[in-house]
């Protein structure tokens, strides 16, 4: 896989459900199709929520990881 270049980072740390998803929806509008959005969250529920949100919207969850209580999602805008 080619190296992922982040077009925008959304810091959603310390926000409770559903704000990380709502802010992600807004943030993805700011990037172009094919670009990547990075989202940082401290909400453990976000793991299931980002899977559901990308499934539902059709954007691609290109990568995810968790470190020191911070969940990191890389989403590729597909449309």
């Amino acid at each position, binding site marked *: 896989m080619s190296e992922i270049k982040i077009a925008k980072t959304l810091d959603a740390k310390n926000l409770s*459900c*559903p704000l990380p998803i*709502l802010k992600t929806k807004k943030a993805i509008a700011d990037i172009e199709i094919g670009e990547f959005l990075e989202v940082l969250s401290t909400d453990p529920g976000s793991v299931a929520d980002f899977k559901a949100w990308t499934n*539902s919207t059709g954007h691609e969850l290109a990568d995810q990881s968790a470190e020191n209580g911070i969940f990191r999602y890389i989403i590729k805008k597909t449309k």
Partner: protein
Amino acid sequence: MSEKKKKLAIIASKADIPGAYPPLILASTAAAMDYEVGIFFTFFGLNMLKKNKLNKLKVTPAGETAMPMPIPQIVGMLPGMTDVATAMMKSWMKGANVAKLQELMDLSIEAGVKLIACQMTMDVMKIKRKHLIDECEVGGAAAMLEFASDADITLYI
């Protein structure tokens, strides 16, 4: 978009704090998931559409046996206890960085969620159109059912 959007229809019948959050959380989230969303506000739920009302909604400890307050149930009925419980709940929510109701409503409106005020409730409670926010429309049971008839999810809250 080629495929048909999913659709969520909600009937919001309560407007204490625990009753007001679920409709707005689900509506704003569904809109963020590209659903078409409509909320029908009826009975006490209509209070959520009143101007400058959302952040003044309360919660009463009377009869709320699951609310973690260190008082006997009977004390919850004393004057002032509703304000105490409301302040406690708001501080818990602030501590957990939960969005304010007004913020969720604003995001729902921005995302195009359809807000329908129940005409019959307006008549019963003597609420005029001018008391409600501009973004809602007024309708009755038929308007709600017509919207919900092809919804993928319908919730009564």
